[in-house]
């Protein structure tokens, strides 16, 4: 049977790529280095598949259909929003596992939207390139990657409670999967950032550290209890991506989280936190 070997919670900040030199050099070096450490730990974990929980930024899904949660079960490429250092490329999906998660959901109360052919955006592509693909290079074995997209940036949002329940469903599906896959989960997003609003460039370190503490102590109830207004006020519209953390945390059911790095970087418009989830 498949096994869950751990997870990570990491940002997917495109400004790292489009304005590399805008951040103070020491902070930038720490963030890039933290991604590399996550890749090393993923390589060491023996994982064969990473399920990356991200969100659309009103690029992939338009006004004609806004799914609450979607899984790619077939061909995957990305990102759509290419940028310097992040070009579109094919992604090796674990199609049998992704299909099993969707099918498990259909008989357990989770009606997944399914993408039979999917183009990701940077929410998937950044952790895929910096952690999963890099871990494949370090380990010499291909690590497949399954995109899961939650409505965490475009309303109507998935609720924090449903994000947790969905993570639990994914966990049950993986553990029931008849294969020798070793699966890790990456919650992609956050922490505080304001996207496209007049507050863009603000970072709330106090809020970020509050979220980090909840994640490292696996306080799922505390995260789920956060109201949308509180998140929007204290962490910005980008912090709604905490839902991706909640889903990944529920899937891993870790013993604890360990902070890999945190850097508040206004020039990159984000409080960037990287956490490893240890089973």
């Amino acid at each position, binding site marked *: 049977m498949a096994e869950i070997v751990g997870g990570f919670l990491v940002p997917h900040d495109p400004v790292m790529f489009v304005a590399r030199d805008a951040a103070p050099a020491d902070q930038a070096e720490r963030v890039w280095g933290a991604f590399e450490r996550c890749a090393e730990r993923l390589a060491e974990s023996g994982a064969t598949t990473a399920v990356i929980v991200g969100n659309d930024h*009103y690029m992939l899904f338009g006004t004609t259909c806004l799914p609450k949660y979607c899984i790619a079960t077939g061909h995957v490429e990305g990102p759509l*929003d290419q*940028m310097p250092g992040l070009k579109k490329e094919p992604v090796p999906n674990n199609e049998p596992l992704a299909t099993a998660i969707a099918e498990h959901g259909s008989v357990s109360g989770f009606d997944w939207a399914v993408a039979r052919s999917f183009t990701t955006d940077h929410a998937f592509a950044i952790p895929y390139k910096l952690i999963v693909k890099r871990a494949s290079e370090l380990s010499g074995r291909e690590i497949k990657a399954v995109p899961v997209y939650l409505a965490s940036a*475009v309303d109507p949002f998935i609720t924090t409670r449903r994000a947790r329940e969905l993570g639990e469903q994914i966990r049950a599906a993986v553990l029931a999967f008849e294969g020798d896959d070793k699966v890790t989960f990456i919650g992609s997003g956050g922490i505080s*950032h304001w*996207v496209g609003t007049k507050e*863009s*460039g603000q970072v709330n370190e106090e809020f970020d550290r509050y979220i980090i503490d909840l994640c490292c102590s696996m306080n799922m109830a505390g995260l789920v209890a956060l109201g949308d207004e509180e998140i929007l006020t204290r962490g910005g519209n980008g912090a709604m991506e905490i839902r991706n953390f909640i889903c990944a945390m529920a899937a891993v059911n870790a013993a604890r989280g360990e902070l890999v790095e945190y850097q508040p970087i206004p020039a990159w418009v984000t409080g960037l936190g990287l956490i490893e989830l240890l089973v």
Partner: protein
Amino acid sequence: MKRDVLERVLWNLSVDRFSKVKFKENPEQFLSRFPLDAEDLRMILEFDVKGLQEAGVSPLLTLGYWIEMSPDRQMSTYNRKLGSESKYSGSIKG
């Protein structure tokens, strides 16, 4: 609902190549496809991102449409139009 149509227009102008070309060729003609009132048309044609956000449009879309279609595509101008003095910008596209 006003917001829904505005979001459909801005989504097209953010990601759909055909819509971008048609808008650049003749913006008024492109926009005539949609049920927009005079104020909607003004906000879109003048890149009034503050007004669009106040009408309920997602900041993700005002940002995407600005980056793809605005005359100077500068985030400093975008921030100024929003009434922000921020020197930083959250461009989500390269």
